[in-house]
Each structure stands twice: as C-alpha cells, then as structure tokens.
C-alpha cells in the first residue's frame, strides 16, 4: 500500500481536529450550540483548503488509498457546504433534547468527515471505512431522540438495513480481493477488463456495489429511507438526503472511471437501475401523507435521475451534469428540509394535515418551502429545472451519439414521464401548506430562529440563482468532464 501524502488529507485532518475541539467545547461550555459553532468553523476551514486545492490545479491525483481528483474535490465541496449549513441550522431544531444536543452536533460533524473519506476512497479498505463512518454516525443521528418510539424505529431500521448492506458489500469485497489479489480499485478495474466475462467477478463487483446503492438509495436498497427519514429528527433526514448521496455519487463516478471500460453492459444496467429507481420513488410518493416521507421518496427519485446521468458516461459532459444536478439538489433539498423543520417546530409533526394552513403563522418558511418544492418538481426557471434540463440534454446527446446506445432516448422519455409524475406529491405538500385553512389555535409555540432562517434564505436564493446559472453548468462540465 502506498502511503497517502499528508497534504491531500488536510481537509479530513482539519475536520478531525475540529471534532476534537468540538468535543472539548461540549465538555466545557454550558451553551451546547457552541459545539455546532466550532464544527461549522472547522467545516469552513476545510472548505477553504479544498477550494484552494481545486484552484491550485490539484486534479487527476491518485495515490494509494485516497484519490484526490476533480470528482473528489467537487464532492468534498458539496459535503462540506452541506455539513456547514446543517450545523448552522441544527441548533434551531426543537426536536433535540438540549442536554444531549452537543453530541448531536458532533455526530453531524462525523457524518461530514465520513462523507469526505468515502468520496475520496481509492481502495476497498478506505471505501469500507468511509461507508461505515457514514453509517455509524448516521445511526446515531437517526435514533437520536431516546424516548421517541418513531426515532427508535428509525434508528433500528437504519442499523438493520445498514448491517445487511454492509455485509453484502463485505462479501463482494472479499471476492474482489480474492479474484484480483489487490485492494486497489483501479487494479481491480484492470482485472475486470482482463476477465470481463467472468461471472464470479461480475457478481462480486455487483455485491460490492450494494453499499454504494444503499447510500444512494437505489431501488431496491431504498426501502429504509421513508421510515428512517420520518422517524429521525428532520435535520438528520436532511443530512441523510444530502451528505451520503453526494459522497456515494462521487464513489460511483470513480468506479465508472476505473471499472466501466471493463464491462460494456454497465451503461445499460445503470440506466435500468436509474429508471426503476425513479419510477419506484415517484409512484410510492403518490400515496404518502407525511412531508418527510414524500421528501425521502423524492430523494429516491432524484437518485434515479442521477443514475441516468451516470449511465451516459463516457459521453462528454456526463459527470458535469451529475455535478450540477447534485449542486441544485443540495440547495433545494436542504431548503425544503430546513423549512419543514421550522414548520415542525410549531406543529410538532410533519403530517400533511398538521401542516395545514402553515402560511398563516409562518409565511416566510412556507414560501421558501414552496419555492424549494417547485424547484424539486423541475419547474422553470428554478435550479431543479435547469439541473433536469442539463441532465436530459446529456442523456439525449448520449442517445444520439451513434455509439450503439440509442436506447438512452427511451430512458430520456422515462425521465420526462417521471418528471411529470414527481410533481403530484409536491403539490400535496404545497396544497396543505398554502391552500388549506389551518387550526388557528395551533399558532402558539415554535417561534423564529434566525440561524435556521438564514440557512433557509441561502438555500432559497441558491435555488433561484442556480436556475439561471449557465456559467456554473459550463464550469462544472469543463471541470468534471
């Protein structure tokens, strides 16, 4: 194993030292939001380092167990921005027991650190370490409210599904190692192309991918997500919807770069998985009556769209489309979850009938939620539309490229149908919040909390701006390819 130069790990080190500092802050400060502030500061510092690395032309750098290329750097920026925003918003949540709140912020910081490790994994050990890092902090975040039955259910379901996914991944990894004699993902890729037709290798690679699919919520590994998102504190659900998915998308992109030349049918398999995932997500969301469940299943559908963009690879601009999609998804999804959290602070529930008439008591939050949901549905001129447009164009270009992948056009049609289908669940939330009259007696409680509102404003503004941010699209296409 080649040792990784320390310089490449500075973001992880900064976040790790930040976590230690946050631990000390948790012990010494009585105001537990100090922990979140220390963590947010560490995220900002690490973000500065990563942006510096990206501007410094660090790219295509693969050494040992960690690869720091354009994909990793972009994913790290996404993970750090998401962790920062979540740490700013988390102290405003009234779901957390204030005595234990500091440990929640610590776990959130740990989730961010796990995302960094996972996104840069270049061998099986780091891949598994990152996966477990994300999972273990995720379990803690899911079951955080100790005396809440739904939280307990969420935590237990997450642990059981996670353990199963982890076990399958390990089985696959052990076979990959046994068959290729190497932990290095790139070397395993060479072996795959050398013995591409070997059923054992293909099965092993497929099993090893279960962990990634679990984190990305690719069907059928998405089943945990509605229950976990509903039972977990809303900030945790927001974190699960963003951080593991960005990191897992980076891993998927890396695996494409290293493995795909080996298997000609990978593209079709990924596209089929994507279409199935988006259809399952959108159809399941139709009957839901809880805002967090709808957002969870919308996250499943969005993972499906992403898979379709990955299937287009190696067409130019495919990874750029993935990157921009994740950027838009980060903005609008975080905005939607933070808005739901602020509404929940008042209603104590994310059931649609309890959210009814929210616009009267919380007009700002409701309007931002509406903006994010409309964007998630892909209505112009918001970020969600532009992201879907870029993605669709990439898929159609891939279908017309004349390299025998004309079926991508059929996938593009499936994407369009799903985009229409996905609007209905969002409209249900909108109708509950904006149209239906609510119980005025429920006006008490809640109250404004400026940090979370600021995060909501940032997300809403990003959702608006990214809708017309064609230079960003061009930048990402140029950077990621």
């Amino acid at each position, binding site marked *: 194993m080649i040792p990784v130069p320390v310089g490449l790990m500075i973001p992880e080190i900064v976040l790790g030292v930040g976590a230690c500092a946050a631990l000390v802050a948790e*012990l010494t400060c009585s105001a537990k939001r100090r922990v979140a502030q220390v963590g947010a500061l560490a995220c900002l510092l690490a973000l500065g380092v990563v942006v510096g690395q990206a501007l410094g032309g660090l790219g295509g750098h693969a050494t040992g167990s960690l690869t720091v290329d354009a994909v990793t750097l972009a994913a790290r920026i996404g993970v750090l921005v998401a962790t920062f925003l979540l740490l700013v918003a988390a102290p405003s949540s009234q779901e957390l027991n204030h005595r234990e709140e500091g440990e929640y912020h610590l776990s959130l910081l740990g989730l961010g650190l796990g995302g960094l490790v996972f996104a840069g994994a270049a061998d099986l050990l780091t891949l598994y370490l990152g996966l477990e890092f994300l999972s273990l902090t995720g379990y803690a975040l899911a079951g955080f409210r100790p005396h809440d039955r739904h939280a307990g259910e969420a935590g237990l379901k997450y642990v059981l599904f996670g353990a199963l996914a982890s076990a399958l991944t390990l089985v696959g990894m052990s076979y990959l190692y*046994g068959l290729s*004699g190497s932990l290095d993902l790139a070397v395993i890729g060479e072996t795959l192309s050398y*013995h591409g037709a070997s059923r054992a290798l293909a099965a092993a690679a497929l099993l090893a991918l279960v962990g990634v699919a679990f984190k990305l919520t690719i069907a059928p590994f998405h089943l945990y997500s509605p229950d976990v998102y509903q039972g977990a504190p809303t900030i945790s659900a927001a974190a699960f919807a963003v951080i593991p998915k960005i990191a897992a998308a980076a891993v998927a992109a890396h695996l494409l770069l290293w493995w795909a030349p080996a298997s000609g049918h990978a593209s079709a398999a990924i596209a089929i998985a994507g279409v199935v995932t988006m259809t399952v997500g959108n159809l399941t969301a139709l009957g839901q009556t809880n805002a967090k469940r709808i957002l969870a299943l919308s996250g499943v559908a969005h993972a499906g769209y992403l898979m379709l963009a990955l299937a287009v690879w190696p067409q130019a601009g495919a990874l750029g489309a993935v990157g921009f999609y994740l950027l838009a998804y980060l903005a609008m999804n975080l905005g939607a979850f933070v808005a739901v959290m602020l509404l929940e602070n008042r209603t104590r529930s994310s059931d649609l009938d309890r959210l009814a008439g929210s616009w009267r008591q919380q007009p700002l939050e409701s309007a931002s939620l509406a903006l994010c949901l409309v964007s998630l549905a892909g209505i112009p001129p918001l970020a969600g539309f532009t992201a879907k447009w870029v993605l669709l164009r990439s898929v159609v270009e891939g279908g017309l490229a004349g390299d025998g992948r004309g079926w991508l056009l059929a996938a593009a049609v499936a994407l369009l149908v799903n985009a229409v289908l996905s609007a209905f669940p969002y409209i249900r939330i909108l109708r509950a919040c904006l149209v239906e009259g609510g119980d005025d007696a429920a006006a008490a409680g809640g109250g404004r909390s400026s940090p979370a509102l600021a995060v909501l404003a940032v997300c809403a503004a990003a959702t608006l701006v990214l809708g017309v941010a064609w230079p960003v699209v061009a930048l990402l296409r140029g950077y990621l390819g």
Partner: protein
Amino acid sequence: MADPAILAASTATAGYSDYLAIAVVGALAIGMVAGILWAVWFVTRVVGRITTTPSKTSTYECGETPVGPAWQRFNLRFYLVAIVFLIFDVELVLVLPTLPLFAPAIAAGHGVAVFLKIFLFVATLLLGLVYAAAKGDFAWDKSKHG
C-alpha cells in the same frame, strides 16, 4: 498488480466438484449433532426413564422459588464501559503492528517523532476516554452526575 496465476486458478474452476467436499463435511456435521442429541435423548429418556416435572423445568435461582417473569429491563450500567474497553482493545491491535514498521526509524534516531506520531493516535482516543469519564459514564451511581 493482479496475479495472472490467481486469476487463472479462480476462473478455471468452472466445475463444482470442490463443493462436494464441503457438502460432505456439512452433512457429517449435521449428522453428528443430530446423532449426539438423539443418543442423549435415548439414554436419558428411554433407557434411564427420566421424566420431566414442572419443578424440574422451572428457572433455577440458586434454590429460591422463582418470582416473576424474566422479561424485564436490566440495568445497562456497564455497557458504555464495555464499549470504551472495546475501543482500547482495537487500539492495541492497531498500535502494536506499527512498531515493526517504525523500527528502522527508531534505529535511525527518530524515536521522538515516532512516539509523537503514535501518541497523536492514542491522544485522540484518550480525549474520548476523558469525555466519557467527564460525562460520568464510569460512575456507579449516575444520579450524582446529573
């Protein structure tokens, strides 16, 4: 690099004859356990005519008459101690193998640097230990720690 010999060996085994041996061993294992269980049952119940009475099947509580069901919450007072112990157990497993790796550096006179490198790892875990202690996780009477 991938070893072609390993690859050839692994992919050439298209037949399933190797699995026959595993199947035989598995059948032997199941048969042995079933046979011993049957033998014990036969000797005690059929030959020895040992019978079952309600007092025989009841829970043994050191000669006392059992009171109440066992389905109750047990005090998990020491599970955190167990977890922290596990962490330091793994720490030992991780630290010891680094010593041969660092041996040339120590021989070359960089002992302090090696010590600091290892200590950095241990100190991170130590911080966790201090945290657990400060939270009162090792106290028998947790009520004193609020």
